[in-house]
């Protein structure tokens, strides 16, 4: 018994899974478009109309915008104060990551032993970045190096995940934050802070894997 095209067609149409777009996706896209649109038309829009538009935004837009504002106030502002940052950091860290992968050195101190990597930073930085061994959880330590970001020397740690590399940029910060994700040129950037240091993990790994990495890191940090 074999199927003709018609049978096959109706078999698929009747039975195969049609994936429905989640409502959150629709909301996220509308927000994104609204923000992009606002950014583009702002100079020509009278302020009064802009304010009215704000109040008539659907609530997901308003709450997302509010969350963004809160995130800025909590996490970006302390950062700006410390490093005098005035632009988006993701792009620079991704560029640093890509350059290290392309031209090197990705790793200046090659070691899977955190007791080799951590002391290597002595005398090279004015702070001691935490270094964790996550090999048992599937993220073996590859080593570390010094990166220069806007005139500051910062620590960069490299971890392997299958054939991917996760780089974690570490420098001091008094801020506290849960991991926040962003994307730049296909790279995932995950940023969090624990009150003594802030961390920026950059990788082409999938979001869930990145989040797992951050979770493991935070567990290790909390256990110390």
């Amino acid at each position: 018994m074999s199927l003709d095209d018609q049978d096959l067609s109706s078999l698929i149409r009747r039975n195969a899974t049609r994936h429905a777009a989640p409502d959150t996706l629709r909301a996220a896209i509308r927000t994104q478009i609204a923000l992009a649109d606002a950014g583009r038309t702002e100079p020509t829009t009278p302020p009064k109309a802009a304010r009215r538009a704000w109040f008539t935004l659907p609530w997901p837009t308003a709450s997302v915008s509010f969350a963004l504002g809160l995130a800025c106030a909590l996490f970006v502002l302390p950062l700006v104060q410390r490093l005098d940052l005035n632009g988006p950091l993701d792009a620079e860290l991704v560029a640093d990551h890509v350059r290290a992968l392309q031209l090197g050195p990705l790793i200046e101190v090659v070691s899977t032993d955190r007791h080799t990597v951590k002391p290597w930073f002595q005398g090279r930085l004015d702070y001691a970045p935490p270094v964790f061994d996550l090999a048992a959880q599937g993220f073996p330590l590859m080593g570390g190096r010094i990166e220069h970001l806007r005139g500051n020397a910062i620590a960069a740690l490299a971890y392997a995940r299958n054939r991917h590399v996760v780089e974690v940029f570490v420098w001091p910060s008094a801020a506290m934050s849960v991991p926040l994700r962003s994307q730049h040129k296909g790279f995932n950037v995950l940023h969090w802070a624990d009150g003594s240091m802030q961390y920026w993990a950059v990788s082409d790994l999938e979001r869930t894997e990145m989040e797992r990495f951050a979770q493991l890191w935070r567990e290790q940090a909390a256990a110390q």
Partner: protein
Amino acid sequence: MSNRQVFEALVLPHLGAAYNLARWLLRSEQAAEDAVQEASMRAFRYIETLRGDDARPWLLGIVRNTCFTMLERTRSQPQSVDFDEAEFEAALGEAQPRDTDPEMQLQKRRTRLQIDAAIRALSPPLREVIVLREFEDLDYAQIAKVVAVPIGTVMSRLARARGKLRAMLSSISLGE
């Protein structure tokens, strides 16, 4: 109408089709969401190029390009095979039906899982023509436009995809 209004009126209604295509082409829900989001931003940026065209194939074209770019970026296996037997077996193995399902439901569920697994095992170029044809009901000319290949190529890919699916699914049709 502002660009945003055009986007909301003409493009947004096809978000379901866009997500379904992306979800079939990519491996995870997250990847599909990322792709649709990226494609939507691109669609908004180039909304002027839409003009009088049908918005659905236009958007699907942007979505599939975004998906293939993402697939290339994370390419970990050779894509020369039309049909990945191992993938098919793995997907079937994962799909263990629960014993508590009533008989009819069980049969329906099994059919669905089997068809899903067979489509999923097709190589992305074959999978996309099947999704565009069978799920979105696009005609050859529209598919050719979305995929940016000649109509003849669309037809031969569809024939190849159907041949593979037929071979895997012929046993199911008996139960219909």
